[in-house]
C-alpha cells in the first residue's frame, strides 16, 4: 500500500513539473504584456520600458525566468506586478474570503441534489419527476449572471436589505452574534446562485445512478426477500448508487481555489476568482501563474484523495500492485 502510494506520488510530481512548465509557457506565449510595460503608454521611452522589464525579470531567457520564478514562489519572495505586494499572502487572504462561499455552496449542492435525484428516480416518469426535470434543465441553461440580477433586484426591492459584499457596509462595532448573522445573510444569495447549477447537474447524476441500481439483480433479490421498500431503497440500493460520488469528493479540492468570477463580481465579493480574473486582464504574471500552479497541486491532491477514498469505500477495488 505504502509503496503504491509512493509510486503514485512520484508520478504526480512529474505531472506537476509539466504543469508548471506549461502554465509558465502559456502566459508568456499569450499576446500582450503586463500593463505596467504596455508599450502604448506614450510617456515611456524604450529605456524606461527596459528598466521595468529588468525589474520584472522579463529581460532574461525563458528558462532562467522559469527557475527564478518558481524559486521566488517557493521562498515566498514573489511579488505582484500591480502593487509589489507578496503573492502568497494575497492568495491566502482571498482564499479565506472565498472559502465560506465554497463551503455553503457545496453543502447546499449535496444537501439538495441527493434527495432530489433519489426522489425523481423512485418516482420515475411521475409528474414530480417531469417537473423537476424541466426545472433542472432550466437552471442549467439560464446564465448565472441573469439569475443573479433577477434575484438581487427581487430581494432588494421586496425586503430592502443589503445583499452585496461580505457584510452590510458601514456596520461596524455591533455584537458578535449580529456580525455572524450579517455575514451569513450575505452568504445566502451568492451561495444559492453558485449552487443552482451544481444542484441541477448533480441531481441528474444521482437520478441516473439510482435508476441503474434500482433495476439491478440484487435489488430485485432484496425485494424478493420481502424487505420493506424503504430498507431496499435506502440500505441496499442507495449505498451502491453512492459509490461513484465518493470520487467527486476528491474533485472538490481544486474547486477550493477556483472561485466564481461572475458571482464574485456581481456581489462585490473580494474572492479568489476576481483576483485571478483581474490579474489575467492586467497580465500580472506572478499571480496568474501562482494560481495556476496551486490549482494544479490541488487537482493532483484531489485525484489522489479520490483514489484513496474509492479504495476505502469499495473493497473490490485494489491497486494493481497488490
Amino acid at each position, binding site marked *: 500500500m505504502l509503496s503504491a502510494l509512493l509510486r503514485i506520488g512520484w508520478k504526480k510530481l512529474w505531472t506537476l513539473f509539466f504543469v508548471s512548465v506549461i502554465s509558465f509557457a502559456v502566459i508568456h506565449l499569450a*499576446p*500582450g504584456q503586463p500593463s*505596467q510595460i504596455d*508599450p*502604448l503608454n*506614450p*510617456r*515611456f*521611452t*524604450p529605456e*524606461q520600458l527596459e*528598466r*521595468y522589464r529588468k525589474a520584472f525579470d522579463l529581460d532574461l531567457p525563458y528558462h532562467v525566468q522559469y527557475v527564478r520564478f518558481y524559486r521566488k514562489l517557493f521562498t515566498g519572495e514573489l511579488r505582484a506586478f*500591480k*502593487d*509589489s*505586494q507578496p503573492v502568497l499572502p*494575497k492568495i491566502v*487572504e482571498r482564499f479565506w474570503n472565498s472559502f465560506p462561499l465554497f463551503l*455553503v455552496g457545496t*453543502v*447546499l449542492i449535496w*444537501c439538495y441534489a441527493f*434527495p432530489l435525484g*433519489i426522489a425523481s428516480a423512485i418516482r420515475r416518469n411521475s409528474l414530480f419527476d417531469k417537473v423537476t426535470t424541466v426545472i433542472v434543465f432550466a437552471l442549467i441553461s439560464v446564465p448565472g449572471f441573469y439569475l443573479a*440580477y433577477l434575484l*438581487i*433586484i427581487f430581494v*432588494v426591492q421586496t*425586503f*430592502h*436589505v*443589503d445583499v*452585496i*459584499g*461580505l457584510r*452590510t*457596509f*458601514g*456596520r461596524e462595532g455591533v455584537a458578535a*452574534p*449580529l456580525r455572524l*448573522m*450579517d455575514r*451569513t*445573510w450575505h*452568504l*445566502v444569495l451568492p451561495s*444559492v446562485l453558485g449552487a443552482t447549477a451544481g444542484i441541477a447537474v448533480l441531481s441528474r447524476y444521482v437520478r441516473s445512478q439510482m435508476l441503474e441500481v434500482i433495476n439491478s439483480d440484487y435489488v430485485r433479490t432484496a425485494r424478493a426477500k420481502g424487505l420493506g421498500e424503504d*430498507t431496499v431503497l*435506502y*440500505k441496499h440500493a*442507495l449505498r451502491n448508487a453512492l459509490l461513484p460520488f465518493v470520487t467527486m469528493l476528491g474533485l472538490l479540492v481544486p474547486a477550493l481555489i477556483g472561485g466564481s468570477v461572475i458571482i464574485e*463580481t*456581481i*456581489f*462585490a465579493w*473580494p474572492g479568489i476568482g*476576481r*483576483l485571478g480574473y483581474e490579474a489575467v486582464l492586467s497580465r500580472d504574471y506572478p499571480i496568474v501563474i501562482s494560481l495556476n500552479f496551486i490549482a494544479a497541486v490541488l487537482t493532483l491532491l484531489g485525484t489522489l484523495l479520490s483514489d484513496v477514498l474509492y479504495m476505502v469505500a469499495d473493497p473490490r477495488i485494489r491497486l494493481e500492485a497488490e
Partner: protein
Amino acid sequence: MRVKQILILAPTLVSLFLLQSYFWVPTFEEQVKGDPGRLTRYIQTSIGDASILNPTLAADSASSDINSLVFEGLIDRNRDLAFRGRLAESWEIFEEAYMVVDETQELSDGTPVTGDTLLRHLERAQAARDPALRLVQKIELLPGQSKIEQIEVAIPRQESGKPKKRMVEVTVHLPPRLKFTLSEVDQDFFVKLNSLLRGYGDRIDPSRFIEGAEPVITRERAAALVPPTEHNPIVLFRLRKGVLFQDGHEFDSGDVKFTYQAIMAPENLSPRVPDFEPVKAVEPLGRYTVKIIYKRLFEPGFGSWGMGILPEHLLNRERLKAEAIRLGRDPKTYSIRDSAFNRAPIGTGPFRFAEWKTDQFIRLRRFRDYWEGSPNLREYLYRIIPDMLTAELTFYAGTSDAYGAQPHQVERLKHDPRFQNFSRLGLGYTYIGYNMRRPIFQDVRVRKALGMAINVQEIIDYVLYGQAERTTGPYPKQTEFYNPAVKPLPYDPEGALRLLAEAGWTRNAEGWLEKDGKPLAFTLLTNLGNEVRKAVMVVAQNAWRRLGIKVETLIMEWAVFINERVDKGDFDALILGWSMGLDADLYQIFHSSQMGHFQLNFVGYSNPEADALMIRIRQEYNRARQVEMARRLHQIVAQDQPYTFLFVGKGLTLLDRKLVRMIRDPDGTPQYLPIVADKLGRINFHFNQWVKTSEPVLAAY
C-alpha cells in the same frame, strides 16, 4: 428510516438556518435613517480598487481618486482650468540662458572673442537698448572647466554592417560661458542674439571641446555634451508656510526636492518619470522657496507640479533601511515601491488615510489641521463594487452617494427628484485614422471624402443616445486651444463622390469605385470590447459601401491589435480614441518624427508647417501666443484630415440632492450653496465644503 429522515432534514435545516439570518440584518431605511453618522460620511463607489497609494507610483484612476484627497501638489487648476497655488503660494517663471564663448571667432569689429570682450560687447548693446536684449536682466561670465566622461559610442565595423557599441572615455573641456538672466522665457532669444552677433552662434563647433581616444563623436553628440546655447527655464515656487503633514510634521522645500528625487530614482520605477525628465535640478532656497531648473524649453512640464508631495521624513534612506531590516529584506534593494507607506499613506491633503480592505473599501477621515480648514464631511469611503448594476442598486437604495453612472443608467434616474445631476464633456475624442503610408490615403481629397460620407450626427443620436458632441480637431473643446472657427465636415455623400472623382476614383460597371483598374478597397480595424467603436465601424462601413468602396472590417483583441497592427503600421484605417490632457502639446501624436516603433503618430501624418508649430507650441511660455499657434495648428490638422474627427463623449454625474456646500458666515451661521461643476464637469472642486443634510435644503436648481 434514518437515511430518509436525514435526506429530508438536512436541506431543510440548512435552508432554515440561512434564511433566518435575514431577520438580523438592518434594512436600508434603518441603515440610512438610524445611523446619524451616515450624514457625515460620503460613500463613493468605484468599479476597481486602488493599487498603490503613492502619487509618484500610481498610474490607475482609482489610486488617483484616493491620492488626490490624501496628497496635494504645489499647484492645481481652478474652476476655469487656470493654475492656482496649493502648497505653493505663488510662483514666477523666468529663464536662465547660456552661451559658449568660442575663442576662435572674432567680433564684428575684428576683436578676437574672449569672455571679456564678448561680455563688454553685449553690455554695450544692452546699454544701447538693443531689442535682442530687451528681456535680459543680468549677464555674467562663468569660467570654463574640464571633466572626464564615459560615453557610449557606436563604432561601425567593416565586415558586418552592424555597428558595435562601446564605452569610451572622453575629456570634455567646458569653455567659459555667458549666463543671461531673462525676465521671461523667450524661445527666440538666441535667434535674436545670433543676428545681433552676426551668426556667432551658428559658427560654434562643439566637437572642438571634446577630446577623446576615438574620433567617432558626431556633432550632435558633442552638442549634447557641450551645448553651444542652452535655454534653462526656471520656476521659482514660494511655498505656503505652516502646512502640516497628517502626522503633524511641517511641509517644506525639502519635501519637494525629495518627491522629485523619488520619481527620478531608477529603482522606484515611477511611471511619472517622463513628466519630470525635462527637469534639470530642484534646488531648495531656504525652507519656503524652491527653484526648479529645466533642461530645455518645455512649457507642458509646469502642470506636472500638481503631483502630490511625499513626506521626506517618512520615506528617506534611513527610514527605508530600518523598515527593510525589520522585515528581513535586503536594505540595498528595498525601495519606496516596497514600502508599507504605499498602503497607509500620509500627505498634506484634506483627508487622511484610515483603513484599506483590498477590493472592499478604502476609508479616509478628515484632516482637521488641513491648511485651508477642515472638510465638513468626517469620513470618505471608497467602496469597490465591480458590477455596474449592483452599484446602481446601492446608489438607489441610498447606501452610496455617487457612482460612475453609464448613460442608460443616468436616463433612468435623471428625473428622480431625489437626485441632482451635472453634465460634463469628456477630454477624449473618437476618430477614424487613415494610414498615410498607403497610397490610397495619401490624397487629402480621399480622406476628406471618407469623412463627408459619414453622418456623425446620426452616430451621436442613435449610438450614443445624444451623449456626445461633434469635434473638429485634436484639442479638448473646453480649452482655449480648440479653434471654434473650424467648421466640421458636412455630411454630403454626393460631395464626397465628386471629391473622389477629382482624385481619379470613378464608378465601374458594377458600381464600385476604381482608379486605373484598381478598386478602392481597404480594411477598417478596431479593438475588441468597445461597443461604441464597433457601432461606429458598422455605420462607417455602410456609408462607404454606399459610395462604392469595398470596405472590410475586423475587430481584434487589444494586445494583438496594438502589437501586430498599430505598432507595425500594418493597417489601412482604424477607429480609436485619444484621451487628451489640458496642455497644448500635440508633438507625440502628430509630429512627423514620431512615426517609429511604438510611437503615436502611427497614421504617418507629416506636414512641415504643423511640425514647426508643434515644436514652437511646446516651447512657448506666453499663454496668448500659445493659444494663437494652437488654434492655427488645429486649423491645419483639420484641413489635412489625417483623422476623421468624430465626437467627444458627454456624461452626467448623479448625486443625492441632499448633498450641498456649506460655508459659515463670520458669525458662524451656516449658509448652504449648490454644488457646482467646473469646466470639465468635475463636481468635487469644493469637496471640502460638502455636507449632507437630512432633508434637501435647497430648492431644485
